[in-house]
C-alpha cells in the first residue's frame, strides 16, 4: 500500500483536491482510503463517504493537531492495510506555518492556494519546504502573472518539489496528481521511520493549560521577542 501525507494551511483546498484526485484514481480502478485529522469538528468524513471513499476521522481537541497526528499515524496505516487499500491518504488539519507533518520516505504533499498571496510561501516552514509535491489551488481566480509569480516564490523555498496546479472545483489537474501519487513508494510499516523535521516544540506552562498572563506564569520553553 502507498501512504501519502497531505498537509496545508486552513482552507487551502486539501479536502477538495483529495476528493477530486481520489475520484480520478477510483475511476482507474485504484482503491483509496482517507484519514482526516481535524481540531474541533469535521464534516469531511461524510463528504468523502458520499463519494464512496472510505474515511476515518481523528479530532485532536485541545492537543496540537500535528503532535496528535504523529501519535496516531501508525494505527491509521494499520487500518489502511487491513482495509486492503492501494492508497491511503492522510489529510492533516489546517496546520500552523511551523508544522512539520512529513515523514522520511513517505510521499509528502503540501497544498497552498493562490488567494493566500505571494508572501505565503515564505511564511510556511518545513510543511512546504520539505514537500515532494506542492499542489496549488484556486489558480482559476487569479491572473496568469500572479500564478507565475507564486510558482517562482515556491521555487525559492523548495527547489526540488514537483509543483502542480489542481482545481478543487472542476477537478482539473486531479487526474494528473493521481498519476503522481500512484508512483509513490509502498509503505507497510512506519516502525523506525523518522519525521522529516522536528515538530514545533511545546513545553511551557501554557501547553499544560495555564491561562494567566505574566512573567510569573511563564515556565519551561519560553522565548522572548527583541523589540530593540
Amino acid at each position, binding site marked *: 500500500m502507498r501512504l501519502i501525507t497531505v498537509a496545508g494551511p486552513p482552507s487551502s483546498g486539501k479536502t477538495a483536491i483529495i476528493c477530486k484526485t481520489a475520484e480520478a484514481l477510483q475511476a482507474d480502478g485504484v482503491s483509496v482510503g482517507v484519514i482526516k485529522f481535524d481540531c474541533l469538528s469535521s464534516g469531511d468524513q461524510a463528504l468523502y463517504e458520499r463519494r464512496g471513499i472510505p474515511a476515518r476521522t481523528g479530532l485532536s481537541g485541545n492537543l496540537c493537531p500535528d503532535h496528535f497526528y504523529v501519535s496516531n499515524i501508525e494505527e491509521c496505516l494499520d487500518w489502511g492495510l487491513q482495509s486492503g487499500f492501494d492508497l491511503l491518504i492522510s489529510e492533516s488539519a489546517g496546520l500552523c506555518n511551523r508544522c512539520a507533518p512529513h515523514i522520511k520516505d513517505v510521499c509528502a504533499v503540501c497544498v497552498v492556494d493562490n488567494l493566500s498571496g505571494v508572501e505565503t510561501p515564505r511564511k510556511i516552514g518545513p510543511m512546504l519546504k520539505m514537500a515532494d509535491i506542492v499542489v496549488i489551488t484556486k489558480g482559476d481566480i487569479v*491572473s496568469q502573472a500572479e500564478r507565475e509569480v507564486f510558482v517562482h516564490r515556491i521555487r525559492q523555498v523548495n527547489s526540488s518539489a*514537483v509543483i502542480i496546479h489542481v482545481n478543487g472545483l472542476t477537478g482539473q489537474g486531479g487526474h494528473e496528481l493521481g498519476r503522481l501519487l500512484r508512483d509513490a513508494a509502498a509503505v507497510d510499516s512506519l516502525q523506525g521511520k523518522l519525521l522529516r523535521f522536528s515538530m514545533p516544540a511545546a513545553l511551557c506552562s501554557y501547553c499544560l493549560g495555564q491561562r494567566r498572563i505574566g512573567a510569573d506564569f511563564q515556565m519551561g520553553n519560553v522565548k522572548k521577542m527583541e523589540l530593540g
Partner: protein
Amino acid sequence: MINQYSDMTLDQLFCEHPHAREFFSALGLSALPAGQTLASTVAALDEELLLDVGIERQELLGQFCDYMAGVERLRSQQQALVASVTVLGGHDKSGNPENFRLELRPGEVTCIVGPTGSGKSRFLADIEWLAQGDSPTGRTVLINGAAPDLARRYAVEQKLVAQLSQNMNFVMDLSAEEFIQLHAESRMVADPAAITATILELANSLAGEQFTPATPVTALSGGQSRALMIADVACLSSSPIVLIDEIENAGIDRKRALSLLADQDKIVLMATHDPILALMGQQRLIFKNGGVSSIRSTSPAERANLTLFEAMDARLTAVRHALRNGEEIAGNF
C-alpha cells in the same frame, strides 16, 4: 557538500548573483555576515535559528545550488522551441472515436466552440499535461511531431499553456507598474524596467480607456485588466500556447489583442461564443459530448461575412457611445 559557491564570500556571491540574496531572505535568513564564505556561514548558523526557519543545515547548500541552477535555466531561457503541437484524437464521452489529427502552429489562432460541459476544458488539460493516451479522452499530444520527453509533464516552469480566464481577479494590492515589474523580476528578464514600460504601453494601446502606471491593478476595469494580462502574457510568459476564455466586447480592441499574441509567435486557443471572434481564427474546433465533433477552417465566404459582422458591430458600438453621451437614439445609426 562542496559546490561552486561554497568558497565565495557572501559579499562576492550577492554582488555576482544578486538573486542569491532572495534565496536566503525567502528562507528567513536575511541577516548573514557578509565577509565569511558561504560554507563557513552555513556551518556557523545557529541550530536554534535553523529550527525556527525549518531547514536542516546539510540540506541548505544543496537547496541553494538547485535554486541557482533553476535561476540559470530561467535566465538563459532554455525553453525547447515549440514549432508545432499535434493533437491526435481519442474518443468522446460515449467512446466514439474522434478521428482527427490537429496541427497547431505558432502565430495561428484556433477557436473552440461548443456548449458548456462539451469537453473544452478537458481538451486543454490534455494539451497542458501532454496526454499520451492516458487521460480520460485517450488523446495523444506530440511536440514538434514527436512524443515529448515526459519529464516535461511536471516541469511547471515550462508549462505549455498560459491561461487567461474570464473570472480572473488581481489579489495583489500593487500598482500596474509594480505588478508587471514583479512578474518580470520573477521571470529573470535582463531589463525588467524596460519590458514593464513596453507592456504598459501595449496594454494601453489595447484598452479603450487609458490607465497610468500608478493605477492599482485592483482598480482596473474589466477591459483594462484583460488588456494588461494579454500584453503581459505576450511579452513575459514563456508558455508557447495561450488559452483565452472569450474576450468581452467592451473596452478592448480584440483584433489587435489577437494579432499581438500571434506576432509574439504564440499558439492561440480561444474559447468563444461570439461570431466575430470565432471567425477571426484560422480554424475552429466544434465540441460535442466531450469530444471534437468537427474541425472547420475559416472559408473565404466566412471571411467576407466577418467584414459585414464587424460593420454591424461598429454600428452597435456607436449606439453605445451615444447612450453614454446622453443622446436620443433616433435617426440613422
